[in-house]
């Protein structure tokens, strides 16, 4: 078994009197996919946003590179490695290409390398033909693929996907599934939330169920052997 990339320990979060997460632990392994199930409102989105550094937990610790630090201290240095994708992605005004290139300007790549990287990424997700189209005029499924590509191009260690297929038709779903498999085999650690877990059997390695603020490992259901 590989070493985990990041271990989140004792995550607690309440909104006002409402305890959403109670001492949740989560370990993220390279080239592994975690499926996170749970009813609407159980706190899946909140958990992902805490892991991504977008939401502040009340308490949490992060272990990485052999050291344990508070969430606040650690998240600064690891947030670059972790990308969160919204259930409905937000595409910036501009075309597909500029959206895909958005995060590259914060990397050490030079102009030429960025351009090459964008071209490769667009080919990877078969979006090359749409490169010059205004991104927010595209259909939901295609927007989701643009968002995947925009994240993938940055080669994060961890990708957090919030209900990635809830707004997709069958075809986009198959394409997205295919892209996710490639991301995983490229070594990314993937966490997917869904209240329709069946979509992800064949991709997920482990399933956790979130209820009453606790994560419980559950059997990946019987149809695990189907692709």
């Amino acid at each position, binding site marked *: 078994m590989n070493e985990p990339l990041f271990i989140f320990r004792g995550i607690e979060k309440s909104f006002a009197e409402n305890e959403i997460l109670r001492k949740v632990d989560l370990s993220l392994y390279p080239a592994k996919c975690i499926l996170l199930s749970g009813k609407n409102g159980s706190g899946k989105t909140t958990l992902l946003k805490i892991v991504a550094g977008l939401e502040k937990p009340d308490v949490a610790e992060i272990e990485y590179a052999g050291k344990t630090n508070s969430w606040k201290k650690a998240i600064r240095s690891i947030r670059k490695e972790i990308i969160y994708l*919204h259930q409905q992605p937000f595409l910036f005004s501009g075309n597909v290409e500029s959206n895909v290139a958005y995060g590259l300007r914060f990397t050490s790549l030079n102009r030429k390398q960025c351009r090459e990287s964008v071209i490769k990424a667009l080919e990877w997700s078969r979006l090359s033909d749409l490169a010059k189209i205004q991104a927010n005029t595209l259909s939901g499924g295609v927007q989701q693929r643009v968002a995947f590509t925009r994240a993938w191009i*940055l080669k994060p260690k961890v990708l957090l996907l919030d209900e990635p297929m809830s707004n997709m038709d069958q075809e986009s779903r198959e394409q997205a599934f295919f892209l996710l498999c490639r991301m995983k085999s490229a070594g990314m650690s993937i966490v997917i939330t869904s209240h329709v877990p069946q979509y992800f059997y064949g991709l997920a390695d482990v399933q956790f169920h979130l209820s009453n603020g606790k994560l419980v490992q559950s059997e990946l259901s019987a149809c695990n052997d189907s692709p």
Partner: protein
Amino acid sequence: MNGLLLTTQQALQLLLSGDAELWSIVMLSFSVSLKAILITTPFALLVAFALNHGNFPGRRIILAFFNSLLSVPTVVIGLFLYVMLTRQGPFGDLRLLFTQSAMVIGQMILCFPVLVALGYAAIQASDRRVWETSRTLGAPTWFTILTVFYEVRFGLLAAVLTGFGRIISEVGISMMVGGNIMGYTRNITTAIALETSKGEFAQGIALGIVLLALAFLLTALLSYLQGSKELTA
């Protein structure tokens, strides 16, 4: 009646013949108000942003404070500034009273709350996902702020135009701290207010036409922006 027709004719002549005095007054107005809006905009928008995204106590009170400043009469701002800048006042040594700088400062005070309140509303309407997406893709804070501004650019531009419309048409501040000195602090509104009382009707009407044309232009731009905002939303 005939007299009115005649002065209007004279006014149009002044406008069309490129009367030097008239156009220098117009230019002065634009110069002062453009400076005021350009200096104020970045600060006001940052305050608007902080009020939206910041998590500090007293946010609501500060916002209410800016909203109440929206209705302060311009002569009160003029009076306040006059007291500050007069020889015996706390900033008297700066010798700013009856200068363009004093007018700029006064107009900055006037448009600051307008820009904060309208900028706040524009940023408030922006999607929380803009901030989150930009952050998670690795953008530093300053770039994320620029991204948010860019996504609500029509609303922000509308705020700036509204602020500009407010300060270029105000009289109270320019009159009190500018002093209507010809060629130095006389702008469109003080010229209309003070010169008309001396019988300079033609010039007053000509300047009034310029101000009206500007008001129409700003309104047209604003409704155009309103349309763009709805299209992109």
